């Protein structure tokens, strides 16, 4: 019966049940205007056999204040950027301006139907067009589609563009021989998954001891003649700029392949260097990283795809173009890979990103990049005496450490991450990239000041000390949260993925 006892902790906030467990028959939290047309028996409109017969059983019945309290209480269990530094490497958890939120809620945008005629939506289309112009300037790549809904969606789009280009260039027979996508061993998991969706098989490129792409291995893999392209993150997921990028591009191009750049780490480059100038053919951006649209607890994102003039004919349709002063949807690209999403993409994110670009201005964009890199450099500097840094090179916007020294005392990366929670910080990205054992990838972004960086460094150094002096303290962390570490293995063995009403005991 233990599970039936509501555990009393410090405050009711800590005990908020599932909404389904709060439901009371007959309670409502809404009111609609009374039906103002002549009501017909519903069976005359929809045949009985098509009507729901379960009376929506299980859907909650609660009041408005029930709902408010429910979510406000639950919200207090979350950590968020607005509470403090959120140094998840590769995720770029920067401040989400309230002004951008306000822009996205202007009724003339928020209330606009996506199938409005172009002449009824000129302002909205102009926003898309202006953002396209800005992003092509920032990347140095002139072709663009804002249709993809997230980074991985942009990757899929970019890789499909490569595939379509090669199919067109080499013809069916030639193209069939090029079905290999090269991906470094440090890449995000979405890269191989996206390549697979486009019908490519993946070959993995090794990284050097310095943490950069192994050029010899790249040459070797390119010699087979089967390479369609390379997917490269730059700066890479170790936070290092691939300084041989021009040579890398030239090796791939000479082998007849194209270079795709994963733009997850563009926060290190905006206003400083442009992928288009490096020889990159196609890139995706994450508006929810670099351009500050909120992460929202796992989306929405927006993953624009930018490409060279040569690849432009293959971009998704419709394209948003300007024609004699009018903005319009252009479908006339017969070589297009097609549509990747209904309507025009995650438009609300485009509004926010354009607002970000405009409030920062060109100098502010570069300053943000400088601050992001300086902050990471400062952390790298502050932690080197306590944590093992696997690569010597100075990092760009994020820095990777390992648990090598702490592991000797039985304290591992996961423990350090959990202990950081007790110090009031969200943990860094852990165990990624996969090539670094016990990786801790730290990305402070530009949205933290020196004081908080110092606090973070102090916390990390304190944990390093604890690992030496009192390892159990770290291993059992966190100590201050509403719940402790959850048994994830048990959760995966017998998954419970939804609430169900308690079984009523039946008298057989």
């Amino acid at each position, binding site marked *: 019966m233990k599970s039936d006892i509501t555990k009393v902790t410090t405050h009711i906030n800590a005990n908020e049940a599932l909404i389904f467990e709060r439901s009371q028959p007959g309670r409502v939290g809404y009111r609609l205007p009374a039906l103002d047309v002549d009501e017909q028996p519903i069976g005359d409109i929809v045949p009985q056999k098509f009507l729901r017969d379960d009376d929506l059983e299980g859907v909650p019945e*609660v009041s408005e204040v029930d709902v408010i309290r429910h979510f406000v209480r639950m919200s207090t269990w979350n950590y968020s950027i607005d509470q403090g530094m959120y140094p998840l490497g590769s995720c770029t958890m920067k401040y989400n301006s309230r002004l951008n939120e306000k822009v996205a809620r202007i009724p003339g945008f928020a209330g*606009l139907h996506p199938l409005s005629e172009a002449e009824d939506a000129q302002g909205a289309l102009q926003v898309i067009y202006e953002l396209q112009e800005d992003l092509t300037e920032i990347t140095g790549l002139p072709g663009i589609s804002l249709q993809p809904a997230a980074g991985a969606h942009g990757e899929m789009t970019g890789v499909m563009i490569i595939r379509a280009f090669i199919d067109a260039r080499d013809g069916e027979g030639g193209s069939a021989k090029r079905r290999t996508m090269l991906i470094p061993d440090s890449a995000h998991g979405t890269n191989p998954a996206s390549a697979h969706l486009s019908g490519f098989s993946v070959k993995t490129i090794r990284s050097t001891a310095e943490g950069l792409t192994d050029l010899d291995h790249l040459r070797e893999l390119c010699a087979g003649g089967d390479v369609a392209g390379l997917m490269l993150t730059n700066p890479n997921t170790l936070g290092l700029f691939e300084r041989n990028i021009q040579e890398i591009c030239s090796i791939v191009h000479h082998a007849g392949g194209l270079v795709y750049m994963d733009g997850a780490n563009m926060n290190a480059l905006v206003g400083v260097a442009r992928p288009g100038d490096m020889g990159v053919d196609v890139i995706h951006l994450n508006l929810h990283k670099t351009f500050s649209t909120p992460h929202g607890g796992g989306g929405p994102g927006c993953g624009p795809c930018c490409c060279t003039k040569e690849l432009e004919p293959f971009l998704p349709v419709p394209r948003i173009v300007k024609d004699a002063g009018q903005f319009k949807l252009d479908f006339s690209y017969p070589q297009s890979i097609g549509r990747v999403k209904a309507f025009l993409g995650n438009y609300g994110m485009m509004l926010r990103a354009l607002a970000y670009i405009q409030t920062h201005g060109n100098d502010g964009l570069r300053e943000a990049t400088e601050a992001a890199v300086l902050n990471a450099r400062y952390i790298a500097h502050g932690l080197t005496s306590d944590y093992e840094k696997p690569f010597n090179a100075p990092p760009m916007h994020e820095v990777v450490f390992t648990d090598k020294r702490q592991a000797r005392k039985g304290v591992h990366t996961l423990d350090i991450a959990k202990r950081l929670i007790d110090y009031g910080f969200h943990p860094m990205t852990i165990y990624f990239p996969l090539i670094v054992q016990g990786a801790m990838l730290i990305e402070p972004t530009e949205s933290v000041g020196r004081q908080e960086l110092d606090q973070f460094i102090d916390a990390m150094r304190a944990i390093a000390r604890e690992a030496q002096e009192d390892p159990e303290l770290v291993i059992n962390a*966190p100590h201050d949260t509403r719940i402790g570490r959850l048994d994830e293995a048990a959760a995966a063995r017998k998954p419970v993925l939804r609430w169900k009403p308690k079984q009523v005991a039946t008298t057989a």
Partner: protein
Amino acid sequence: MLHQVGLTSAEELFDSIPRDLRLTRDLNTTRALSEIELLAGFEQLATRNPGAQRISFLGAGAYQHYIPTIVDHIISRSEFFTAYTPYQPEISQGTLQAIFEFQTLVCQLTGMEVANASMYDGSTALAEAVLMAERVTKRSKILVCGAIHPEYLEVITTYVQHAGIELLHAPADTATGQAGALDLLDDKIAALVVQSPNFFGCIEDVAALAEKAHAAGALLIVTVTEAMSLGLLKSPGACGADIVVAEGQSFGVPLSFGGPYVGLFATREKYARQIPGRLVGEAYDKEGRRGYVLTLATREQHIRREKATSNICTNEGLIALATTVYLETMGRRGLQEAAAQCAQKAAYAAKRIGELEGFSVPYTGARFNEFVVRAPVDAKQLLARLASESNITGGLPLSRYYPDRPNEFLVCVTEVNSRGEINALVEGLASQGKM
């Protein structure tokens, strides 16, 4: 700080980038705008969207519904909208419990056993369903019933082009507007795909289609673009569907020119390990306290890489939260009432328009809140005149997708359209239709 890290200038931060790759000029983007200037600029652009200011009967995959005020209030809380994907469960229980409730609500509405934490939108959710059907059945043909949203069809065509999957089409019946004969349904078909209510607003006989699909050993994928219909119509799960996907925008999400919306994805428990995307499950800590975690991650890209069930990573977390707040606020009775009002008002509108001289409502199939109207004149021009003279967006000209149907348009009526608005539409059509 620069000195502390051993540098003398900001430029040195970028020493690892070869000098000739560094930008030596300012970006050609705008100078920094103040809040006042920025808002003025966007407000001005917004005035150039007259479509947002009209009385509207436009649906076709994106719907205008009542949104309780608290939805935006809750999703605007810092703790929700500025959090990341809940990788650290101890400090993400708010997001995780909300997703668990979302998954439960999606199951209840669709009549299915498991649902994921969301997809990008309805169209991509359908594409993922098609890919999943191929994995489950090891068959490579998909039969699509004709009256599916044309943009959804385009999206799945894009997704399957390199997956070795062949899409076949079964045209809609020209009299009823519902699924027609399924001559191509055989034992090579992985799944039959049907939208209900379909693109023309007609309710499909999902149970009958499920029976036919299952007889051929195929799965039935049901896609719903107007999720509000789930408040009134028998759930796809109760009709025998194997995978149900839906666009969740109707549940508390503004039109916002097409996004962000949220894809709902639900299936049978036996296929749980084939689901794309994130799943949240119940878990317990050492003290026996209940919590929630991301689970069954071995399906996902960060573990399985190219062998993952999908490449999806970021999904539509905050929009799924909006949907959850909406569904809980409207609740069981609110959903039923809103859905019933949609059906009643659409029936009233269809009857009035059908009585107009020269106009007809051609399809005989039962409908929820959308219907095709055949006008005596070119529909696009008719609707343009209606917009400029009566300030009403009267619907979607079908010629946008079907150039051979110039005189037809699709009308959508929801609970937000008053009787007065419907009457104004009818009167406007009557006067413009005469020209």
